């Protein structure tokens, strides 16, 4: 039975009957014996893949299975920044597709994801960064991504709380993407989950994959803590644990899992209506709708699956941000957490066929996956439905390292992004 639509009329109707008529946002069925497509991982990327499989390709006999709870991995742990100002063409294409899909997502899935295109500013604090961002702005112009390089006066105008005359790293300019912004991260997962459930797909939480069954070099199904599930096609979309799933499927992925942390301050009155990223000093900050300052920094340097990172990274991030925003120096920090991110050698993702036939991976988003959720799902759905990558995913194969065709955003960004 299709779910009731959310609308202003629904709110009015429920107000009149003491909110007794709201139904659960999505169904939680027991798994069936067999599906056309099984997607492992009900985070943003996995759910977006399922959503576009149904929406663009008419494949609706789909299960999305999740070890923990829906959106409880990196989807619930990021700093919600959305931007597409990448240097390399394949990156700009997929991130810009994603950003543009975010603009209409609330209407598409009938769920308010609170997309806020408030603008993203990446500070240039060294001469090297000035030249780098000017180059990126030119590249973006060619790619059709609206960005501009702005000087320090404009930076101060856009974000008055910035100290542009810092002693170590004065602000020399910034790469400004006015259409970038933030969105409510949980709502992205919940909105896709609801839309998938509405299309008849099964979202199965608390269901861990323990083995991937293979027959004659093809995928046959998965063994889970809720029993055996057969599938014709399998999508592995599990971010930090991609390496573990790949091992079950019998191949190795060119990525390593490390911890990336974020933290939020106590809520304060509105003081900052843009997202600011300071890559040289390694910190980024925005203000949530609740008033908390949302802060992210660098990733740890060693392999880790614990979902908590090293304290000294927080210290470095906060130190850098206090220098950039002196007014936050007396804020108390409320919460800190970590997520396990899967880093590739060129800091670009993998959306690819694998050595196991009918098994596909979408991983390697590293420190910047949230912004890519709708576009990543779009490209992954195309790959899974057709068996071959479409134009968005074509460059992101897992074999690109062997073939030397890197999409080198690590050099382009010079920093985790």
């Amino acid at each position: 039975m299709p779910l009731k639509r959310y609308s202003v009329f629904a709110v009015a109707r429920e107000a009149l009957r003491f909110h007794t008529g709201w139904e659960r946002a999505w169904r939680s069925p027991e798994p069936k014996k067999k599906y056309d497509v099984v997607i492992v991982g009900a985070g943003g990327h996995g759910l977006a893949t399922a959503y576009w499989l149904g929406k663009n390709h008419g494949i609706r006999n789909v299960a999305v299975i999740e070890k923990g709870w829906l959106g409880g991995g990196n989807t619930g742990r990021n700093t919600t920044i959305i931007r597409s100002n990448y240097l390399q063409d394949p990156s700009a294409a997929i991130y810009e597709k994603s950003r543009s899909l975010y603009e209409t997502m609330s209407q598409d899935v009938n769920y308010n994801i609170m997309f806020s295109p408030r603008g993203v500013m990446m500070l240039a604090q060294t001469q090297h960064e000035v030249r780098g961002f000017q180059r990126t702005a030119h590249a973006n112009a060619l790619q059709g991504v609206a960005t501009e390089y702005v000087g320090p006066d404009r930076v101060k105008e856009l974000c008055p709380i910035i100290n542009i005359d810092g002693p170590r790293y004065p602000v020399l300019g910034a790469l400004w993407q006015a259409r970038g912004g933030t969105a409510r991260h949980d709502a992205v997962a919940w909105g896709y989950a609801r839309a998938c459930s509405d299309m008849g797909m099964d979202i199965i939480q608390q269901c861990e994959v323990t083995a991937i069954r293979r027959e004659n070099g093809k995928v046959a199904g998965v063994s889970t803590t809720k029993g055996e599930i057969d599938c014709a096609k399998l999508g592995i979309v599990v971010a930090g644990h991609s390496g573990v799933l790949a091992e079950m499927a019998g191949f190795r992925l060119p990525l390593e899992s490390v911890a990336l942390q974020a933290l939020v301050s106590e809520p304060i009155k509105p003081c900052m209506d843009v997202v600011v990223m300071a890559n040289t000093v390694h910190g980024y900050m925005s203000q949530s709708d609740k008033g908390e300052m949302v802060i992210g920094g660098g990733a740890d340097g060693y392999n880790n699956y614990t979902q908590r990172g090293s304290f000294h990274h927080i210290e470095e991030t906060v130190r850098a941000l206090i220098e950039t925003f002196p007014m936050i120096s007396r804020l108390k920090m409320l919460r800190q957490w970590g997520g396990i991110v899967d880093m590739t050698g060129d800091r670009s993702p993998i959306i690819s066929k694998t050595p196991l036939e009918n098994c596909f991976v979408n991983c390697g988003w590293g420190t910047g996956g949230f912004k890519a959720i709708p576009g990543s799902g779009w490209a992954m759905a195309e790959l899974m439905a057709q068996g071959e990558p479409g134009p968005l995913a074509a460059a992101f194969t897992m074999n690109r390292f062997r073939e030397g065709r890197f999409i080198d955003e690590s050099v382009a960004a010079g920093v985790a992004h």
Partner: protein
Amino acid sequence: MLTLTCPCCNIACDETELHPGGQAHVSRAGPDSGDDAFEQYLFLRKNPRGVHFERWRHAMGCGKWFHAARCTVTLEVFGTYSAQTLEPPQDILDAIAARRPDWQGFA
């Protein structure tokens, strides 16, 4: 905070004193190797959920490289040892086997 004992100078170091160097015991592909071997050598790192062998450098101390055996799930350290070896020494393997009876062994 992660604490490793540098086997070169026998000092217990906080991780702020150290620099991580990635997977240990990676053997270099020779000039006649094919693409597969080079991919293996350059990009396909082990990424285990569990026992892992790593290179670390005592950057803010003696400056020497050494190896550590560590669990990536609990951050437990099984031991550190000299970098001048192609595979982990027996006492490290024994220490891991004692703590992780199900461990498949170094391969």
